[in-house]
């Protein structure tokens, strides 16, 4: 008994232990709760930061491309394409898979003649996501990195063009020095199947798609039945074939120069979940730019030089739609400003997982880009 009384003074009583344990578990519980919330918050914050980073990269790419629309094009950034029952298209790759809503997209027409402009609008042309239609946009400019314009291009047959470097540098040549001129089949930047090439023969411009036999150091092939239907028979005007057989050569010369075109389409791909923003060039396979982009809408400002008036915020310019009457009879090449009405990205993590009020985290962009190259070409590009 004497042991017990000594022990009681040494330690805690059962009551003390119980109170201490209860308090202790309260504090430990709170600490665990705090830790869990902390982990959640850290995750949310890093997710948000990463999303903003991805979004910034994607929007920078899009706005840069938009401001480059029309760069390097001539003839008012409006180039007539081959006109026949087979219509030139965009948005398809070399396997003839088409990506914009699973179909090919026709170029806009004047009358029944298709034209390639520095900027092509795609009102409601993208997929429908969560019941909402989305837009696409296509910009066209010349490739500034491949100095194809330094070569003399000669139509050797209806489907082949030979390229040769002239002994004195061509006035069209944009290379800083002759040593910088890459070969036609350069492994990094040379012509590959699906590339679009804009030929200038005197006053005639012809667009053709590299297709068929492999490009050698001197010759590229532009066989017919190409995925984008740019290469058409000798009877079709504005085709490479017709340029070859046309006579007299004085009005249809077969020697000129060439530049590579970049026809770049941005669209949303909803074949994956969540949807993503894709960038597709010429007849190449599309490349994802950003994941989880769920909305994309544009509108455009145009300038009517004959009446000196503006047509502002036209979602579908030139269509004659009721909201776009101010842009009737104007061409896409007369677009002066591009408004990104909304480009939105959702994070892949549901906010509700972290005690936030439902929904995903999202970030969106509304801004305006000047089509400065397009207006330049439109004003001076002849």
């Amino acid at each position, binding site marked *: 008994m004497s042991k017990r009384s000594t022990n009681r003074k040494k330690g*805690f009583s059962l009551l003390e*232990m119980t109170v201490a344990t209860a308090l202790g578990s309260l*504090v430990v519980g709170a600490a665990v709760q705090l830790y869990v919330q902390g982990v959640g918050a*850290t995750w949310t914050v890093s997710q948000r930061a990463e999303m903003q980073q991805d979004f910034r990269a994607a929007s920078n790419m899009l706005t840069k491309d938009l401001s480059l629309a029309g760069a390097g094009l001539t003839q008012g950034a409006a180039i007539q394409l081959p006109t026949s029952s087979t219509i030139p298209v965009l948005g398809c790759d070399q396997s003839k898979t088409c990506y914009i809503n699973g179909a090919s997209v026709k170029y806009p027409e004047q009358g029944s003649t298709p034209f390639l402009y520095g900027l092509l609008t795609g009102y409601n042309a993208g997929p429908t996501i969560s019941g909402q239609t989305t837009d696409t946009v296509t910009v066209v400019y010349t490739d500034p990195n491949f100095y194809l314009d330094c070569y003399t291009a000669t139509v050797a047959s209806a489907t082949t063009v030979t390229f040769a470097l002239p002994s004195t540098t061509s006035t069209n040549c944009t290379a800083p020095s002759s040593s910088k001129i890459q070969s036609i089949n350069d492994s990094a930047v040379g012509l590959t199947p699906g590339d679009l090439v804009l030929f200038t023969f005197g006053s005639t411009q012809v667009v053709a798609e590299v297709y068929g036999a492999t490009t050698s150091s001197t010759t590229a092939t532009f066989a017919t039945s190409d995925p984008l239907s740019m290469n058409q028979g000798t009877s079709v005007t504005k085709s490479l074939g017709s340029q070859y057989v046309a006579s007299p050569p004085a009005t249809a010369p077969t020697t000129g120069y060439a530049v590579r075109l970049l026809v770049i389409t941005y669209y949303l791909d909803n074949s994956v979940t969540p949807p993503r923003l894709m960038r597709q060039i010429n007849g190449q396979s599309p490349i994802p730019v950003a994941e989880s982009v*769920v909305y994309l809408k544009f509108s455009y400002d145009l300038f009517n030089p004959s009446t000196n008036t503006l047509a502002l915020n036209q979602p579908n310019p030139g269509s004659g739609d009721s909201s776009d009457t101010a842009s009737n009879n104007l061409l896409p090449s007369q677009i002066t400003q591009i408004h990104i009405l909304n480009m939105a990205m959702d994070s892949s993590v549901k906010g509700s997982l972290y005690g936030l*009020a*439902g929904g995903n985290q999202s970030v969106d962009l509304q801004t305006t880009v000047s089509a*400065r190259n397009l207006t330049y070409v439109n004003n001076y590009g002849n």
Partner: protein
Amino acid sequence: MVAPMRRHSGGNSQGHQQAQDGFSIIEVMVSMVVLTVGLVSLLGVFGLSMASTQSTQQDMIAKQLADEAYESIVTARNTSQITFDDIQNVGATNCPVTGASTCGIFLIPAQQIYNAGADGIYGTADDSASGQRQTLHDPGPDGIFGTSDDVYIPLSGYQRTIAIGSVYNSESQVIDSLRSVTITIQYTTSQTRSQKTYILNSYISQFQ
């Protein structure tokens, strides 16, 4: 958290000393309070990181507001809808193109963020006349754009100043074909309530 007790370590005679080795309940409770205060102060760090992430978003908006104003100036220059004289602040007296006594269309004080108005150019007198504030378009509770529950948040915490200045050559003469453009966006971050500024400095030439 329970204080260590060395009950098993030895015989009964050591009992007295062991009792003095342990913590009293008061000590334990005080240490718990201290620990709790320490942990709670950590909460502030999470709040701060949330706030800074949020302000990153506002920084991005400010950058876009500055960019779009500059882009609209470039567009106006390119389309020739206004003369180069008018690419100045209101009341400018150097008007070589038109020879007018005053020219310039960009308002001088900091402006609320309105839509561009009838001329398509930000920062001019017709912006506020339209009465349409620029808004952020958020998808609302359903997370889907274009539905009736969309939220349009006016950019009320932002102000934009467009200052267009002369550029001088080495002989201190005004270069008539070149002007400097300074676009300042002032905004208040919602969490920290601090005033922030984004400044875009650029030039605009008379020639495209």
